[in-house]
């Protein structure tokens, strides 16, 4: 009997290297403590793990509630094929946020204290409750995929019966959660650079999360198309990109008005580290996507849409890192003559958490009915040849399901 060796590819080797590095950093973190593993200090108590793994991570998982809302509440049923991958990303995203939190908390085993010693005046308490409840909701929203795969029809019937209340609950929790990550910073007005501190932070966080949820969905479906030959129809992605850009225009208008109201507009013309970072954020998040999308003939192809959305996602990451890290730099510099940059350990842990996300997504797509099965012509028409070797035919995915809608 012959055992088939899994094919070794460049990306598999890269993922393995990152994960092994992450393992080493994990040993340092839990063997020698936060002081040894990070560049965090009494002056700079929050760093990359909060800024990226938690605050940015939750944002990148926003596709789950955005798409669920579009399809189930607004009944735009043609987007239905995208709901599953979006909810999968959200579920994986939230799970990895919890993993990231475990690294950052000094006493992760005491995390249940949040349940019994509740302080309703703490934004972080709201954040903790939302993480816990929304991860549960996401698990339930995602469960039909697993139940279908293992043909558990009674459980499936039950989950389907509570779909709409679940979706509404998920959207409400996301609204609270996305905005609460911005509210966290409301208590430090004097420490943050005026570009990023605003009493409007909770609103900004929510609106930009809606946009990045759409952006992430476009990015994912492009990458999945390349990796697994699972494709979504380009016109769908085009519509998503258009909604995304619309939301972004609203978002940046609000930010502009906010800067004006707080008399901070003149800072835009004073060269500084912070000004460059703001320009980087605005370029990646709004200007480049707008330009790319409007390139005639190319901007609305699958590749063009990918780069439009990918630039937006990078810009979103820059924005969250600007709020959580960049905006505090001038405070550290002026009062303590110091600055924060993540340690190698912090970077490696963050990179391997992201890698774990990719690996888990790939495994889920391989073994679970995430993407609708396409007729071969559809795939060929779009121009991406399916890779048969890495994508075994899925069981129990009725292609008819897609055609019905």
């Amino acid at each position: 009997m012959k055992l088939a060796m899994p094919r070794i590819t460049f990306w598999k080797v890269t993922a393995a290297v990152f994960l092994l590095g992450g393992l080493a950093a994990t040993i340092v973190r839990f063997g020698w403590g936060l002081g040894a593993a990070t560049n965090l200090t009494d002056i700079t108590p929050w760093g990359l793990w909060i800024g990226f793994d938690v605050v940015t991570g939750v944002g990148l998982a926003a596709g789950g509630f955005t798409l669920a809302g579009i399809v189930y509440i607004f009944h735009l049923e043609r987007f239905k094929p995208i709901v599953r991958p979006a909810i999968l990303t959200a579920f994986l995203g939230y799970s990895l946020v919890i993993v990231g939190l475990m690294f950052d908390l000094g006493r992760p085993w005491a995390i249940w204290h949040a349940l019994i010693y509740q302080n309703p005046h703490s934004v972080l308490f709201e954040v903790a409750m939302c993480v816990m409840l929304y991860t549960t909701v996401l698990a339930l929203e995602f469960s039909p995929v697993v139940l279908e795969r293992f043909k558990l029809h009674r459980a499936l019937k039950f989950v389907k019966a509570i779909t709409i209340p679940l979706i509404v609950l998920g959207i409400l929790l996301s609204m609270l959660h996305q905005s609460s990550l911005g509210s966290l910073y409301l208590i430090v007005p004097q420490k943050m650079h005026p570009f990023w501190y605003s009493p409007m932070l909770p609103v900004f966080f929510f609106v930009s999360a809606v946009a990045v949820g759409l952006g992430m969905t476009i990015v994912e479906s492009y990458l999945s198309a390349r990796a697994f030959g699972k494709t979504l129809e380009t016109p769908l992605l085009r519509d998503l990109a258009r909604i995304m850009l619309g939301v972004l225009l609203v978002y940046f208008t609000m930010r502009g008005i906010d800067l004006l109201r707080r008399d901070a507009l003149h800072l835009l013309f004073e060269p500084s580290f912070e000004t460059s970072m703001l320009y980087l954020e605005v370029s990646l998040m709004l200007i480049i996507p707008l330009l790319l999308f409007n390139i005639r003939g190319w901007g609305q192809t699958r590749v063009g849409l990918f780069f439009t959305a990918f630039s937006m996602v990078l810009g979103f990451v820059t924005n969250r890192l600007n709020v959580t890290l960049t905006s505090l730099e001038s405070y550290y510099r002026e009062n303590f003559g110091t600055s924060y940059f993540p340690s190698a350990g912090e970077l490696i842990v963050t990179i391997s958490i992201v890698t774990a996300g990719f690996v888990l997504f790939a495994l889920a797509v391989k073994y679970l009915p995430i993407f609708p099965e396409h007729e071969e012509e559809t795939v060929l028409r779009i121009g991406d040849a399916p890779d048969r070797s890495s994508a075994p035919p899925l069981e129990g995915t009725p292609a008819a399901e897609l055609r019905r809608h």
Partner: protein
Amino acid sequence: MSHAILVDLTLCVGCGACTTACQQVHNFPEKENPTLDDKNFTTIRTVTENESGDEYYVRKMCRHCEEPACASACLVGALTKTKDGAVTWDTNKCIGCRYCMLACPFDIPKYEWSSMSPKVRKCTMCYQERHLTADMELDDAGYVLDASGERVVIEGREITAEDRDTIIELTTNMDDNRASACSVACPMEATVFGERDQLLAEAKRRILESPDDYVPRIYGQKEVGGTSVFYLSNVSFESLGFYTNLENSSYPDKTWRVLEKIPDIVVTAGVALGAVYWITNRREDVKRYEEEIKSKRSKKKA
């Protein structure tokens, strides 16, 4: 009664008696020129004033805010503003998230970075220490028991009869009143412990009686909504490195203003989502019904 501390920087000679007493009462290793960290809750910094070149001594410690940002930030409520005036913390609740450190406008809470079970630590205005009394019962092993018969634990340390006597000595002032160790130790009365209203009146009296010796400002009276540590100085607080860009309103209010709206947001958004679902769902139903009728009619015709 709410307690407070008055620090008159014009009287401070920078001897360091307060920092030493603080280290002793908390059983910390004694250090020369310490910085504020998890094993040192107060420091004296020598500041050279820019214009005159004169040297000043600035004592740094927790301000025990009237409305502490740290206590509002803590998700498990480990930090509390007591009626006594002190902002205390409960080591056992802390999960080590460090939000209090970010939230504190004076950068006071410190972290046990090298510990494998790190918690946040800071000055407690000797709250528990001031409440130890000589008549407390001991158990068979010689540890001090509280009223409920449990061993007294101060910052993770169980207190022996010997510890208790040392602590009582360090926290009893010349008038036989209990006070923070730093104020008891100060030989110049630059740090005074007392009742908040009285100390505030005393601070005002000093400024009014000798206006030439003080700048007309009590740092801590209004900052961040008022603190329980007041500073007096004869040069501007800005030149001594005090934060002068703090607002005079409560910091916890900034987040509470948003948090208190959550119930309204949930109800409104919930109903709105339900309404949208109702409308779009009805539209689908109508469409389906119309199609059915249409197909029936076309069948009839055929």
